[in-house]
């Protein structure tokens, strides 16, 4: 059951119809999240496919970011936040005490809405992660990791002559690609992106989308976006959240042409719910 993807609504527990031939990278079961007394996520079960892009959409405050942060235990860092349920990755529950959250976060990388390069050189921005995780044997090896990560993020040609410049000296779109390169550098399996293009212009957005499309051949990507068009363009599967619940998940084509749930329809067509 864990290596199949459920299509359609997840309202009925234990029902996982139509299993496409994609393997599951992460499997979330009955996730509930609380901020103190207040519940933000209600009993969400979602299978996330490997080597593909899953888009999380839904109205502001519906819990997209909260859910995304469950996937690399970033909610641990939030005071009063409590996560219940099971998130399996390679046969292990990521919330189990044997899992080191720092290590987990190198395998499940994250890119935020606002590009947040460290106040260091471009080179150091990339090298930092591999260094603390001991991924490079010496300078030459590190140079290679830096170049490869920047190339994969589509930034190498633009910065190869100025690797010592501050990361913050780049344009917003370049900074976002730098952050993606930084996430890639530690060889993650999953990349979480929370509205990665909302601060970017259409050209920079197109470059990130092109990059996401390229990265999905290698990684499992989960992206939160407020743009229906972006979700339709970059993702293969789309999950619609509403009031903390997962209302509907399915192939992106299906969600945007024939959603099954009225709430999904109302949201993506811009109607009063």
């Amino acid at each position, binding site marked *: 059951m864990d290596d199949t993807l459920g299509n359609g609504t997840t309202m009925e527990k234990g029902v996982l119809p139509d299993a496409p031939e994609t393997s599951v990278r992460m499997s979330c079961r009955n996730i509930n999240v609380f901020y103190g007394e207040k519940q933000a996520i209600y009993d969400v079960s979602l299978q996330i496919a490997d080597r593909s892009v899953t888009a999380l959409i839904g109205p502001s405050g519906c819990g997209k970011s909260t859910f995304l942060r469950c996937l690399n235990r970033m909610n641990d860092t939030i005071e009063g936040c409590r996560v219940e349920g099971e998130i399996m990755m390679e046969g292990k529950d990521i919330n189990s005490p044997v899992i080191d959250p720092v290590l987990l976060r190198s395998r499940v990388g994250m890119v935020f809405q606002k590009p947040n390069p460290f106040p260091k050189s471009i080179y150091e921005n990339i090298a930092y992660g591999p260094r603390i995780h001991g991924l490079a044997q010496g300078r030459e090896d590190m140079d290679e990791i830096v170049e490869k990560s920047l190339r994969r993020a589509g930034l190498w040609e633009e910065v190869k002559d100025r690797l010592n410049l501050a990361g913050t000296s780049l344009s917003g779109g370049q900074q976002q690609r730098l952050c993606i390169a930084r996430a890639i550098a530690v060889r993650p399996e999953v990349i979480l992106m929370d509205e990665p293009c909302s601060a970017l212009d259409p050209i920079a957005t197109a470059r990130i989308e092109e990059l996401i499309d390229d990265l999905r051949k290698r990684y499992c990507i989960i992206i939160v976006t407020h743009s*229906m*068009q972006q979700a*339709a363009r970059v993702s293969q599967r789309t999950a619609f959240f509403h009031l903390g619940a997962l209302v509907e998940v399915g192939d992106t084509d299906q969600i*945007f*042409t*024939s*959603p099954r749930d009225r709430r*999904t*329809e*109302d949201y*993506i*067509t*811009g*109607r*009063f719910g």
Partner: protein
Amino acid sequence: MSDHIVSAFTEELERLSADILRMGGIVEEMIVDSCRAVLHNDLELAADVIERDPQVDRMEAEVERQIVSLIARRQPMAHDLRSVFAALKVSGELERIGDLSKNIGKRALNLDAAVFPAMRSGVARMAGPVSRQLHQVLNAYASGNAAEAKAVWETDDEIDQHYNALFREMLTYMIEDPRSISDGAHMLFMAKNLERIGDHCTNIAEFVFFQITGENLVQQDRPKL
């Protein structure tokens, strides 16, 4: 369905479907009138049908213009996307029906006034069921009734049977009296045009059904009579 937050979007979609229905109404009359012109040898009415065709062409162009603009500005999704897609396809089908009706009108002008009345009424008999098909599928479009669209789609074989019967009937007249061959040939083309109008109605039914349900009517589902 509730309204869009951007109310102009709702208005644009409503205008689009109103235009389609208006176009459909004109085309439906063209079918009926072209066949009435044949039945009564009414040359004026035939000429009038021919003159209505450019208006239908203009309406199709206008619908296309609206749709291109709407896609560019609104990027419709889900039911809206299906509505826009259906409007585009249906307007194309209606334009074809207009052409075929015009063609019947043109042939009506070329008939011998002394043609067998039975031949004229044969064609006119087929006009009823064909125009009813169109009427019903436009109703389904206007009311969002998927079952009604499917019903039209399922009864296309009846039109085909009408056509086959009429074909044999015309051949009989032509064999009986070779002087009727020229008119008979015109009549056969008219009958063929009506049969094709029936096919276009079936296509419209498929688009209407898709717009409403998001599902395709598949060929295997159609009962063979």
